[in-house]
């Protein structure tokens, strides 16, 4: 019995040892596999974290480089920029900080590079407009630079044009970035005051003078993009006379500088983009030749339009027709900031052939 017991015990002991060993081994295996999987997932997380870090680092570096270069490399070539000194009143009414913001954006370096980048992106997210002007080839000099032979009466690249009329305290800025930032901000509700209207005088037909045949004609060709100007136009509506068309819409015209002196032009192309909301008004850019409207585009926001003319010689200007919407609340004394990017292209007779 005792032997049996012993043997039994022995067996049980062996089995116990065996079982214990097996148990320990399986536990250990399980532990190892759990640790392995944890380590594996940690390693994966760490590696993924590296990519996340690269994401943060690349973007931060990009922002910092641009931020530092924007802060250090200032473009001070803007002739129209006025230096505003910090005053207590300026800080109180916010005009000084507004000036600093505008000055920051206006004097950013590398605008042409960013414009090219923007153009590249526009090829990716959009297709070309229907009005392509592939026949227009810009003249280049021996260095390959585009010769812009257009003579600007006033040479400005970025201009803020302030029109006649008293400057009022009411400046309502309507830019694309100002809309829908919170409720009500894009809605402009004030009492409407309809102005007394006056009849327009129809423009007289322009007489074109023939040039002598022996005179050398300068070839002037340019793509609208070459003369591209982005300008913020402030329209002061103090004492502005509005005229009324057949459908009762009120309108008033404003001329934008610079003006161009052209010789023997047969075609003018106006390419423009108007940035802003049209909730309260319409903008109709048009070409003014020697003080007269020679063609108007009906598209309010962006277009390229060709104006066929006949050997015109004189001063070409861009003008905008400002048409407040009915019940918009725009009234005498208000002022509106309109951001417009435009370019003029010209083609003379020789080029057309």
């Amino acid at each position, binding site marked *: 019995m005792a032997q049996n017991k012993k043997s039994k015990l022995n067996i049980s002991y062996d089995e116990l040892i065996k079982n214990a060993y097996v148990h320990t081994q399986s536990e250990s295996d399980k532990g190892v596999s759990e640790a392995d999987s944890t380590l594996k997932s940690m390693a994966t997380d760490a*590696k*993924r974290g590296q*990519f*996340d*870090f*690269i994401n*943060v680092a690349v*973007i*931060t570096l*990009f*922002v*910092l480089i*641009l*931020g530092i270069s*924007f*802060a250090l490399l200032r473009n001070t070539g803007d002739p129209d920029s006025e230096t505003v000194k910090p005053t207590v009143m300026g800080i*109180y*009414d*916010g005009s000084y*900080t*507004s000036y*600093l*913001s505008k000055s*920051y*954006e206006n004097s*950013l370096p590398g*605008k042409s590079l960013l414009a090219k980048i*923007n153009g590249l*992106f*526009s090829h990716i*997210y*959009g297709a070309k407009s*229907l009005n392509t002007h592939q026949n227009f080839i810009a003249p280049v000099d021996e260095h390959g630079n585009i010769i812009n032979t257009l003579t600007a009466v006033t040479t400005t690249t970025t201009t803020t044009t302030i029109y006649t009329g008293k400057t009022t*305290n*009411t*400046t309502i*800025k309507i830019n694309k*970035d*100002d809309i*829908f*930032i*919170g*409720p*009500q*901000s894009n*809605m402009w509700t004030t*009492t409407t005051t309809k102005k007394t209207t006056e009849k327009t005088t129809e423009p007289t037909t322009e007489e074109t003078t023939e040039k002598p045949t022996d005179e050398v004609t300068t070839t002037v060709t340019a793509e609208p993009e070459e003369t591209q100007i982005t300008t913020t136009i402030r329209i002061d509506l103090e004492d502005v006379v509005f005229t009324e068309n057949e459908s009762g819409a009120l309108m008033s015209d404003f001329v934008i500088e610079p003006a161009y002196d052209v010789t023997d032009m047969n075609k003018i192309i106006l390419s423009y983009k108007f940035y802003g*909301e*049209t*909730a*309260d008004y319409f903008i109709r850019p048009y070409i003014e030749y020697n003080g007269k409207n020679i063609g108007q585009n*009906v*598209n*309010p*926001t*962006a*277009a390229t339009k060709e104006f066929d003319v006949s050997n015109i010689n004189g001063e070409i200007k861009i003008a905008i027709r400002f048409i407040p*919407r*009915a019940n918009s609340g725009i009234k005498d004394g208000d002022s509106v900031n309109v951001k417009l*990017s435009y370019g003029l292209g010209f083609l003379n007779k020789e080029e057309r052939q």
Partner: protein
Amino acid sequence: MLYTDLIFIYAFLPITVLITMCDRSTEYKNLILVIASVFFFTWGKPLYICAVFLSAIPDWIFGFLAGSKSRSTKILGVLLSAILNGALFLIINYNFLFAGTPLTIENSILPVGMAFYTVRSASYVFDVALEKTKCEKNLFCFLTYMINYTLLLVGPFVRYGDIRNQIRFRIITGRKINDGITRFIVGLGKASVLAGALGYVKSVGLDVTDMTFFGAFLGMAAFVMQVYYLFSGYTDMAIGLGLLNGFSYSENFLPLRVKNGVTGAVFGFNHTLIKLVNDCLISPLSRSSVSACLATLACSVLMGLWYGFSKQFVLFGLYFGIIVIAETLFLKRLLNKLPRLICGIYTLVLIFFGWSLVYFGNLQDYQIWLSGLLFRGSGIISEALINEILAYCALLVFAVFMLTPFKDKLKSSINSAAAKSERAYACVRVLSTASLLAVLLMSTASRVVY
């Protein structure tokens, strides 16, 4: 200053984030956040707006009244807060109502964020009175909540109870920075790139002097999407900025589920604000189905007026209020039985016509739009609209795609592909970094060029 301003992206934001990271203590972060917020809000705006922030102090005091055990003191606190914030909201946001009175603000300023500010202020006192959050004894903690530039412009509408603990203790982790940067740039892309492109299509399409069928249809669709992307983009930017400052805010825009009908869309749009209105006004007033309907209708009108003080916005509020009531009472059962496609068409058509109520400033323009939609306009499609669509075709397709359920499917399939191997994850991450950089560059370039 706006989140899309270059001076914000390339000067204000990097500087404040770097300064915030100089110390790990939450008190320091709060101090920097308050200073930066005052600087942010007064930049380019009259300094006296700063005085508006002083209204936070009376609200802090009203919080004590609302937190007292006496019911009458509670009511007094809530009433005083409602009067103060209501008055501020009207004076700042709808100053034209006070023309010719001493309350006239001479310089026309955009009431950026004031609507959210005043409601946030009042919500704190309401929540304390309803015992949803504790009364804050520390003024500085309360100011961190009230004067927080990440919450100033638009939603998410964060209630004090949601971030009370985060104000006292929060850490800025690498993950939060990564998510914050990503979210901010995604929002920037929505608000400046997508909403910008949609804005051009809208302006050309809804030109009342040249209203065509496609102009009326696509223009209004573009307007609805533009509104969505602007709000959603600014919300994303706010959530991203919150993460960069160590905060976690709740989502403000829920994905559109066609089965939920217009009610789902209404509750999904500016969700946090609607939840507040529901908690504070509709639920307490809803004692029977009739009173619930009346409360919903009244709150819809109030919400409309909150968005804009005009009869169009009253109509807008009523329109959606009536649809929500109708769906809750009987249309929901019908919608559940209908196929998904029909539900989708029903929802989109009602949203489309609802938003059209606020676009046009007068009935004459609205009639022109309707006649354009009924083929009585100046044609089928204008050349100008074709040009505009061609100029932004890929962006427009992308904008539509992002509003469909396919976006979620694509996202989950990309995530599952990325989970398979490290190489796949690396590819996805590199592509996403490149896309974020491209969006940042596009936003910068468009801002600089135009």
